[in-house]
């Protein structure tokens, strides 16, 4: 929060710098604005940039370095007999205790005198550091202001400099997308490599047994931990298949109806309805699946045919996931169908075909590549969907194709492995990253394929 106030203060300072720079430019030109190379406000921006950017860099560097320095000082001031023989994890625990005590946490070991003094020292160091940071940041800002102020003269090309800086910032912004992708790939690869150094790749990809629980005590049953991900892949595919069985017919037929038959008034009502369906958060679908659909299927299965439907059946999760994807399929196919040239339809009508014959025999074949692309995107969406399956599908792995049984999916396992306490050196936690890697690669492949198919189709008619 303090940092937030400092940032706001900096913004105020930069604004002040803007007015100073602007006024300074007018003064140097002797009050004749047309003698200036650029409009006065560019001199203002120039000054604000010289204040804002160096002090912001200073602030960020300070915030990154500060905790490490302070922790180091605090730990080195502890009595030697305590810190002497600590392993890295014990060191971390001790540091954590001190931090908790300093933050006034309820569960801290306040009564331990060593920790209490260290905590007190930590707090006072933090305060001093904050004051020092304030001074440092604003000193940098002031020197930036002085530097800019001295540079301002009527001949200075302020606009060109400002525009160069802004252009640079624009380029940086558009690079963030690449940085994000790189971040995803690097972090997934980094953790997966550690995982695969403990569990061989072929065992992960082809093993039929998934039970990631590794017991803390060696004598516990099932303490070995098995990381064969085939049951997860099978479960994911089963649920995705059910979802597509629901979403494709309904989504495609409603897209056809909306694009070819519906009058404007019907569209005006039905399109927002599908958009509402698309805008509902997945956690709501998950709740709906777990509390309404799954019990309904279970009761229906028992009463009508005496079938034993699990209360976490793949069917319930799949059907609700299908419902979630309906608007996705329909809006994508709607676009594709509309992109088919009207001349094709007119030609078909001219030959005496009815509307449905035209759609089935002319429009659909023409739109097919686009629709296939849309369905691929829908499949990738279903595979990556998390909340519905977390709330409505099972948690334990089960290699089956029976939709009435509980199965688990890749995303469910990632969530169950990573929610709660984690240790980053156990294969249990790392396996989540390996699963994430698989998920990322599969959805990426599907998306690239879909985009390629769609693009090819577009070129065909444009």
């Amino acid at each position, binding site marked *: 929060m303090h940092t937030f106030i400092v940032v706001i203060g900096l913004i105020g300072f930069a604004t002040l710098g803007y007015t100073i720079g602007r006024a300074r430019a007018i003064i140097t030109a002797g009050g004749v604005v047309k003698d200036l190379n650029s409009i006065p406000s560019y001199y203002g921006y120039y000054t604000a940039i010289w204040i804002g950017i160096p002090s912001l860099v200073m602030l960020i560097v300070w915030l990154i370095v500060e905790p490490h320095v302070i922790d180091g000082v605090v730990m080195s001031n502890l009595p030697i007999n305590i810190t002497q023989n600590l392993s890295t994890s014990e060191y971390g625990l001790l540091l954590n205790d001190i931090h908790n005590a300093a933050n006034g946490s309820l569960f801290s070991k306040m009564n331990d005198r060593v920790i209490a003094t260290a905590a007190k020292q930590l707090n006072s160091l933090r305060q001093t550091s904050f004051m020092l940071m304030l001074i440092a940041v604003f000193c940098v800002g002031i020197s930036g202001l002085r530097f800019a102020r001295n540079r301002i003269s009527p001949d200075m090309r302020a606009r060109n400099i400002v525009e160069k800086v802004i252009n640079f910032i624009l*380029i940086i*912004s558009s690079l*963030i997308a690449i940085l*994000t992708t790189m971040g995803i790939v690097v972090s997934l690869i980094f*953790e997966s490599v550690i995982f695969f150094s403990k569990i061989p790749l072929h065992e992960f990809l082809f093993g039929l047994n998934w039970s990631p629980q590794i017991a803390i005590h060696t004598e516990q049953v099932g303490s070995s931990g098995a990381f064969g991900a085939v049951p997860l892949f099978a479960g994911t595919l089963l649920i995705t298949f059910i979802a597509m069985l629901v979403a494709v017919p309904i989504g495609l037929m*409603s897209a056809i109806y909306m694009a070819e038959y519906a009058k404007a008034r019907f569209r005006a009502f039905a399109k927002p309805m599908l958009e509402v369906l698309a805008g509902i958060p997945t956690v709501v679908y*998950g709740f709906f699946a777990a509390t309404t659909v799954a019990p309904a299927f279970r009761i229906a299965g028992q009463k009508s045919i005496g079938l034993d439907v699990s209360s976490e059946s793949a069917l319930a999760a799949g059907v609700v996931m299908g419902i979630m994807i309906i608007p996705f399929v329909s809006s994508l196919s709607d676009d594709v169908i509309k992109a088919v040239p009207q001349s094709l339809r007119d030609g078909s009508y001219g030959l005496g075909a009815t509307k449905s014959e035209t759609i089935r025999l002319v429009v659909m074949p023409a739109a097919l590549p686009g629709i296939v692309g849309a369905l691929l995107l829908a499949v990738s969406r279903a595979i990556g969907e998390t909340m519905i399956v977390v709330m409505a599908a099972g948690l334990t792995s089960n290699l089956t194709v029976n939709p009435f049984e509980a199965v688990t999916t890749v995303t469910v396992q990632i969530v169950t492995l*990573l929610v709660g306490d984690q240790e980053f050196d156990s294969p249990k936690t790392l396996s989540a990253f390996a699963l994430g890697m698989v998920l990322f690669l599969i959805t990426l492949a599907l998306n690239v394929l879909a985009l390629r198919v769609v693009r090819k189709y577009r070129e065909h008619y444009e």
Partner: protein
Amino acid sequence: MNNTLSTSLGKSTSSKTIRLPDFSGPHLAKRYASERRFRILGISSVGAAGIILLILLSSIVSKGYSAFWLHKVELNITFSSEVLNPDGGAVEEVKLKEANYLALIHNALKQKFPAAIGNRCKIRMLYGIISPKADLVLRNMVLSNPSLVGTTKTVSLKLSDDLDNLSKGFINRDLPESDRRVKDLQIDWYDQLKSEGHIHSVFNTDFFTTGDSRDPEEAGIYSALIGSILTLTITLLISFPVGVMAAVYLEEFAPNNRFIDFIEVNINNLAAVPSIVFGLLGLAVFLNFFGLPRSAPLVGGLVLALMTLPTIIIAARSALKAVSPSIREAALGLGASPLQVVTHHVLPMAMPGILTGTIIGMAQALGETAPLLMIGMVAFIVDIPQTFTDPATVMSIQVYIWADSPERAFVERTSAGIMVLLSFLVLMNAVAILLRKRFERRC
């Protein structure tokens, strides 16, 4: 017309053998029937989507509407000084803060139903009528008005969640006692209180003003709401400027080369990456590498910002593309620099479209759950988060936490939480639609 057509057709058949359209009655009827079937299939799938939406919404409303009120019972509470000030002497605030207010409620209950005294099992059932957090109400009353000590006053206290369900009619009295969470004796006491007019229902204001709690009757959505606001603030502060700047660069300034193509492919792919993968990124990079605090709105906001960035960039680019080139040419012709053209003319005209895209992105971020689970925002948060680094949760995760709780009363809390979440989404989308309408009118 018909005649000429048939004669000309007739002529051609005589000279060559051409397959003619079959205009005979039965065949045409078959084709028309299949046309009708196809049409019905189409409208019924739109209808199916509508019915599903109706079922979804009505199941949530029917489960959740009852969470907006709860039942309270009036009890004659004696603020006896023996309990509040056991060692005598002056009434001090320190003593009052730590006094046993639960005992006051228990005394009042024992006084009301003396028959339960002496039987530990019955006493426990009797105490179970009132919410276990009801003593805080008395504490606040006494702290704000210490002169209450020694007096007797009628106070309305919350019923416990089981009794509240009983009074809302969710508990089937015909079930055998062992299958019910409310026992026969409690039902008798409840009926007696009810017939004496001591039980009344009130609007559940606490639901909107408190944080989470283990007791359903005390649980509220306020802390999650504040968490959502803090998280979305960070998301907006990052994704809006960065997204708009990236879109401006790619649309207005970027050279046409392979690297820029690569950036565009990247953005399109990021838009389709499963949200949980962004959660893994947040866990590995923001928490483990940069060491930012777990469960903090800061980290949640960062992850959601990266997630909504592609949405905003794509929307902003199409809004920029929609600005007519004549505007740019006119401005350039009058001597504006390329950057001035964009900031003075193109951006203001594209702004409504950009804002619409941003609001839609924010609405997505508001409903997003999975990536936030990864960075530890699934936490039991009672206190209202004050800063961007306090542990916090968001509304969608609050819904998930409540949905996981076994108590019947949490089902209605979950549905009520969903209703609050959905109403925020409706609000945001309404603003987006309004903006779009204004934009359309101007062009």
